[in-house]
């Protein structure tokens, strides 16, 4: 199997610790921002979710679950030991959101939006691109992540 790491631009690999650091902080910021926005106006978020054709039945659980999951992931990313787990979790969340948007855009007769703050002002296509971008970022983070114990730059030389 070809090494995945070789497919990533050299620059990122050389600066991998910094790149992973930046990715983690981006995700922390994104998730905390999104979670707070939802919790601040929980009632609105809940009503919006109950409009969604996909989530209407489980709106109650989802309305609490999503912001809590977002906060949890942000915490995971903050603690160095759990950083890799946090990156997997970020990937899962972003991928799920992306998939949700794709389903809603393609199959639902009407599209409600439940994203907080500035995200609310994005159009659906922009939103989709934004989410896909963050999903890819999580993948990049997962492959670039190294334990601090390992000497870095090892494969760059190979």
């Amino acid at each position, binding site marked *: 199997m070809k090494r995945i790491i070789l497919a990533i631009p050299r620059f990122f690999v050389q600066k991998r610790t910094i790149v992973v650091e930046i990715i983690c902080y981006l995700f922390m910021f994104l998730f905390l921002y999104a979670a707070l926005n939802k919790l601040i106006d929980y009632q609105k978020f809940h009503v*919006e979710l109950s409009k969604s054709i996909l989530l209407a039945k489980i709106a109650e659980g989802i309305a609490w679950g999503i912001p809590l999951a977002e906060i949890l992931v942000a915490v995971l990313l903050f603690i160095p030991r759990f950083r890799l787990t946090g990156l997997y979790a970020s990937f899962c969340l972003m991928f799920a959101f992306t998939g949700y948007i794709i389903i809603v855009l393609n199959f639902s007769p009407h599209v409600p939006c439940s994203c907080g703050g500035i995200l609310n002002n994005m159009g659906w296509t922009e939103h989709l691109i934004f989410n896909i971008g963050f999903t890819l970022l999580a993948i990049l983070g997962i492959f670039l992540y190294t334990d601090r114990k390992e000497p870095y730059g090892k494969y760059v030389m190979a």
Partner: protein
Amino acid sequence: MKNNEKKRLILLLLSTLCIVLALVSLYALSPLSNREIYRGSFSRDFIAEKTLTPQNVLDLGVNSYYISGLTEDEVFLSNYTNPIHLVRMNRQLKDTQHIRLHLEELDSVVSPKIFKTEVDPPYFYMTHGVHPALMKGKVGEWRARHHLSGLAFYTDAVSIDSSTFAIRYFSKSQQAYALALLQEKEPQFKPNTNILRGQAEGMFSVSGMLHYSKELQKVVYLYSYRNQFMVMDKELNLLHRHNTLDTISIARVKVDKIESDNSYTLTSQPAVTQKMSAVSGNYLFVQSALLAKNEDKEEFKKKVVIDLYDINTGDYQHSFYLPRYKNNSIKNFKVTENRLLAIHDQYLVAYRLPDIPSPDPTIVKAK
């Protein structure tokens, strides 16, 4: 290290799989996978040519156009995303001309996408219910100026003549939508709060479509969520309440309040009974969302059904289908004489209507 990479790849694929599974089950459990179409207890009378065939088609490239004007010889299209852009073409949908509209004395406006254009030669109108603005200009000159004073916020406007508009607005005293006339003569604002009748709440249960028939000089309002339309004279006096084919007399809507915005929103899946409509001459054309008992469900899903009503008598005439052109339902349609034009996503399609008797000549003369 190689192992490490492999492990991460496998974990990543596993998470992908889990999420895909979760989404698929979410989809499978939702009403999307098995959408029930409400089957009414009424039957439809289809004309001999059950499904109309497209006569002319124009690919517009984008799906943001709507038909803003339709005359015997010409078609006018406006664009939601760029309200000052207008397209003019002949009845064969050829000789396309792109026009830039000029808005005078209007520097900026919030949400310009709200602007709606109506071309009715020799004038054209641009309405924006939130600004609120109502502009009027001459076809050919294409310069719109403010028209009518004492404007209230409105949600919908249709021209009756060059100095009178019928609007739908939110009445604070009634806490509900109501209809009104906006006109040059006094009173400039003439409401009639008795036409729209709310059920439990005065917003969604009365939402619908406002039309004016130039030939009959009558205003028509068709509810979206229930089986009724009202016919008024041009002074907005109620003449009749008529029923559409189905028996849904109570709007099937569930409403929830968003406290922070102090706004209301629909929470149930909207149970629209009348999706879209148009008025031409004596007739009201309604795109229905309901399946009749003598209709094939699969055929219904593949087509767009239009029911015809006589505005004067309220009688149902007959129905026909439009195809879903390139698998696109219609976004907007208009009718003139014996032609029906519809926007199917990015395509403008012209259909020929089979023999509908033309409006009574004496009434046309009176215009």
